[in-house]
């Protein structure tokens, strides 16, 4: 996991290393300064030597400036390095997701991808900064201080060697006990978030059924769990500070006792034993050593907390896109014909379970209009999604223009196979911006023309700002039917060889629906059109109508043929025209 994450450091390696190097400088000054201060007191103040005070003062000031310089520089580098690391990580993840195929996207929920890219990255950014600053600083500080302490008095410094293991063991014990609780808390947090999210999405349902209290109870129960677990974890962690204090106080007392005896024994002569000034230095090193160990333990806490984030990020980065452009890919689509040869398809390749589509054999000539009718769960959408290779087949082959879709360059294939998805999305931006997704160089006339075909021009003209009307995120300021027509216009701008409408006019009224189909027949006769619909009227005039049931093509033919041969088709037709016998005969 760490290795994968480290790949995103890249150009920030230099800054990270600089931050670590300069912070070592800061540490050196920080270890020297107590010595200087002790000298200032021992030889300056205590002796009343004003000259020494000023001289030492200047040295001290310079050291302080040195520390400030190193610290500031290191702070700067660390800030740049950690922000840069976060930027790279976000970049890598976002790019990775862009390369995902539909089945990769299906695997993660949208919300979970978003959390990984936002909250988790921020967590890792903080942790990274902590590591390059504290992870170098703390051990260095401990080592330098320990060296300095041993330099002053070896025997007394053995006290540190006795106390450090106690602290380390204690911290280790606390960490191992809190870790599982923290992991549990984070899982519960996910649950809490999903309750809030569902509540937000379903607020109309909640209010309609007057379930506010029920939702409150659900929320409070999870909230209570978080409270209990988090409290428990923090109470375990609460042992950290007193443990540290006890160790430090023990060090102070032991140093005082043995230090006093040593000083008295040698008569306070630094050369043969220990001076009072040296004892003070030892005591301040004690603080520094133990404080830095404490700092290290805080790093472990941070690591514990961000481990889950790391895992979630890496999971996203390690996901391999299962649909990619092959080598020597075909760069142009000859025509809009489509062939299905013994196609079998399931969403989870290889695992047991019934295939969603099985044994599909079909030839659609270029320029044909094909209607697809079928019940809920009859795999109509799955069927058409194989054409622009949004998913790969398990067995058999899908061919566009006589060439297997797996041999095409993906951009080429999808550029010529336009698909209007059932669950479609507009993006924030003007109507024009949205339409230019289809063709970024489209002229205003071309845009207008596409909208006229999709019967969107009329309502766009009624907006005060026309084509420059701003679409809110998620297209909330246009109605469902308007959104669908805009999505069709967007697809038309691609000037595709194949156009697939996956139930894309369900929210459009019947008259407009008919106008759209009429425009298609007149204006883009050479484009192969595949229309999935619920309304028979939408497919009635097609050259070929497929009736799908349970993942199989059960019937295929024109309207009149199917009325004769397909009981399912007839049943649907009659259910839609019932109560109006005149019409049934009219067609």
């Amino acid at each position: 996991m760490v290795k994968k994450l480290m790949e995103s450091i890249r150009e920030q390696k230099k800054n990270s290393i600089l931050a670590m190097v300069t912070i070592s400088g800061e540490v050196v000054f920080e270890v020297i300064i107590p010595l200087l201060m002790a000298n200032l007191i021992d030889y300056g103040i205590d002796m009343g030597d004003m000259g020494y005070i000023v001289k030492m003062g200047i040295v001290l000031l310079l050291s302080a400036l040195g520390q400030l310089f190193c610290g500031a520089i290191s702070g700067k580098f660390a800030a740049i390095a950690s922000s840069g690391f976060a930027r790279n990580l976000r970049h890598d993840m976002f790019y990775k997701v862009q390369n995902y195929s539909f089945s990769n996207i299906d695997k993660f929920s949208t919300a979970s991808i978003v959390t990984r890219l936002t909250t988790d990255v921020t967590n890792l950014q903080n942790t990274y900064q902590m590591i390059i600053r504290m992870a170098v600083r703390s051990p260095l500080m401990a080592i330098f201080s320990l060296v300095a302490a041993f330099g002053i008095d070896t025997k007394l410094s053995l006290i540190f060697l006795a106390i450090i293991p106690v602290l380390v063991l204690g911290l280790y014990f606390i960490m191992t006990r809190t870790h599982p609780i923290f992991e549990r808390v984070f899982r519960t947090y996910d649950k809490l978030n999903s309750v809030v999210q569902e509540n937000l999405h379903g607020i109309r349902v909640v209010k309609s059924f007057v379930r506010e209290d029920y939702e409150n109870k659900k929320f409070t129960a999870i909230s209570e769990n978080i409270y209990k677990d988090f409290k428990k974890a923090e109470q375990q962690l609460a042992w950290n500070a007193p443990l540290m204090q006890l160790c430090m106080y023990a060090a102070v007392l032991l140093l005082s006792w043995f230090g006093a005896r040593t000083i008295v024994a040698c008569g306070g002569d630094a050369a043969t034993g220990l001076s009072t000034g040296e004892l003070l230095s030892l005591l301040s090193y004690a603080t520094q050593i133990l404080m830095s160990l404490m700092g290290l333990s805080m790093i472990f806490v941070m690591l514990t907390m961000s481990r889950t984030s790391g895992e979630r990020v890496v999971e996203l980065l390690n996901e391999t896109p299962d649909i990619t452009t092959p080598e020597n890919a075909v760069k142009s689509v000859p025509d809009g014909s489509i062939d299905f040869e013994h196609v079998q398809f399931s969403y989870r390749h290889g695992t047991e379970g019934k295939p969603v589509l099985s044994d599909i054999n079909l030839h659609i000539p270029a320029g044909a209009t094909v209607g697809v009718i079928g019940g809920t769960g009859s795999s109509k959408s799955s069927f058409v999604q194989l054409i622009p290779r949004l998913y790969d087949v398990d067995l058999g082959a899908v061919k566009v223009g006589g060439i297997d879709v797996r041999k095409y360059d993906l951009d080429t294939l999808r550029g010529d196979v336009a698909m209007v998805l059932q669950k479609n999305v507009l993006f924030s931006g003007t109507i024009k911006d949205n339409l230019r997704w289809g063709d970024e160089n489209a002229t205003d006339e071309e845009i207008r023309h596409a909208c006229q075909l999709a019967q969107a021009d009329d309502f766009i003209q009624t907006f005060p700002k026309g084509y420059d009307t701003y679409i809110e995120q998620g297209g909330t300021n246009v109605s469902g039917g308007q959104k669908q027509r805009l999505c069709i216009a967007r697809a038309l701008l691609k000037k595709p060889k194949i156009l697939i409408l996956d139930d894309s006019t369900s929210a459009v009224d019947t008259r407009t629906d008919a106008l759209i189909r009429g425009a298609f027949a007149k204006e883009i006769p050479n484009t192969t059109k595949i229309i999935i619909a619920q309304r028979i009227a939408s497919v009635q005039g097609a050259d070929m109508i497929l009736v799908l049931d349970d993942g199989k093509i059960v019937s295929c033919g024109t309207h009149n043929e199917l009325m004769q041969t397909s009981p399912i088709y007839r049943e649907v037709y009659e259910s839609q025209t019932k109560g109006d016998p005149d019409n049934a005969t009219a067609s």
Partner: protein
Amino acid sequence: MPPRPNGPRLSMKESMKQLDKKTLFRLLSYMKPYRLHLVFVFICIAVSAFASVMSSLFLKSLIDDYISPLLLESNPNFSGLLYALLQMAVIYVIGAFSTLFYNRTMAVVSQGTLKKIRDEMFEHMQTLPIKFFDTHTHGDIMSFYTNDTDTLRQMISQSIPQTLSSIFTVVSVFCSMLTLSIWLTLFLIAFLFVMFKIVGKVTAKSGSYFVRQQQSLGNVNGYIEEMINGQKVIKVFCHEDKTKVEFDKRNDDLFTNASEANKFANILGPIMNALGYFLYVLIAVLGGGLALAGVPNLTLTGMGIMTLGGIASFLQLSRSFVMPISQVTQQISSIIMAMAGASRIFSLLDAESEKDEGYVTLVNAEKKNGVLTETDKHTGLWAWKHPHKDGTVTYTELTGHVELEDVDFGYTPEKTVLHDITLYAEPGQKVAFVGATGAGKTTITNLINRFYDISDGKIRYDGINITKIKKPDLRRSLGVVLQDVNLFTGTVMENIRYGKLDATDEECIAAAKLANADGFIRMLPQGYDTVLSGDGSGLSQGQRQLISIARAAVADPPVMILDEATSSIDTRTEAIVQSGMDALMKGRTVFVIAHRLSTVQNSDVIMVLDHGHIIERGSHRDLIAQKGTYYRLYTGAFELE
């Protein structure tokens, strides 16, 4: 709290300060239930701080009172020192335990406070009007629960105890310093003043960058959310590269602001340290100078001469004085973030709740000798309980008679989207709305259950103005199947039971059968016990709709609103659903919004809407005979074939 006069006298900065103070006090008020805990924490922090101050004072006495005299003795007796050390050991142990106690208690206080805030947020959110949810993005609302609450946790569990402990340390060190030299203490205060100025400058700078960082972060996160939501569209249009370019632009912008903000935050620590050393040197020089010049020293205990030992001690103390202050400044950025988080949370809590002035309630009733009386039993017969000003109570049977009279409505006051809507629905009638998208069909149904309030006119339910009916009771009497289906994490059974919490398994299954959902539910791996997650993502749109119909069916309301409910179920399934629905609709008043005219043909009344006006009304036959818009709509689909 009365509104503050918003005069021009308050500068931007001052009003910010005012705001923060208010936010802080409000935040603290959430800790009120933990008053006793806090008093205990207070004491423990004081004891713990006292122990650490004692520790630094002890060093002076160790040298001055023990080591130096012992050095002069030929036969040193260490028993005095041992006694002093034991005394210190006791103080230390007490100090360490105080630290433990306050940390453990703070865990209770901080988590308890957070829980309270969290629960209150959610509870309050449930009372907010639909308008709030329509005008805020879900991401924004989510971050109240995630990011903002998290910043509060940081502040309550770390910053507050840290600050308290620092204050105690500073105060006790300050007192000790006064006993050494008032002159030097005054000098130190003056220096502190300068120090705060510098810190203020740096934090102001970093603060403005932090604001920018948050803005860019919001910008990047918003983009991520939008693009990931539309990821499949991006794939279909091969728009990956363009999306990447745009993303990089925003991401780089965030990088710039984030590194600036963090730079200033990181530099603060070294600056504080360096200033601490500066102070040290200055005091050494000044103190030394004063002592050598023999300036009389003023202390709390009286006048005296400045001793060199005193200066040495003062220098030590100045370290203990600066350290906690610099620790507090380290907390500043997290406090700023927490205050920003808190004020966002409070803005949610301050969002105005849905108003409910209704007083007419829905009660179980039974008929005795033709007179309606209230009862506790579930009789299947419901009545509106209408208390009057003169103290009398009348009961009106719940029949499902709905009437709209000259109703005008607009989501914003400037733009009216429905004009002069007048319509009657007799109990058991089926009223259908047809019309082009955006004609205002869905809006009408938002008004009947008072998701939005009308701007003019009246809506009456069984002859009672709906503004007089308590909203929960009004909504309970209306069943709704919405265009966008929302299911909740839980089993299929639980999702159906959402319609009526005390429904038995049998009732739920019966409802599912009615909605024609039973068949596919039994095919699911665990049948009715199959757990749905992520809004029922494993199910098809149609299947989810079937469950939502079953959910409405189990609630068994007298009035139903079906908002384009059947539009994504295929016609075959729909035919079967329709027969179930017809059974369900029997005896109920139903409002249907549908696009397929085939589903509205058997309605009693069809309303044709256009630009917020009812332009035609009547039965299918009447409207066909009128040869108006409905006729064109109806025949239009076929004439082009």
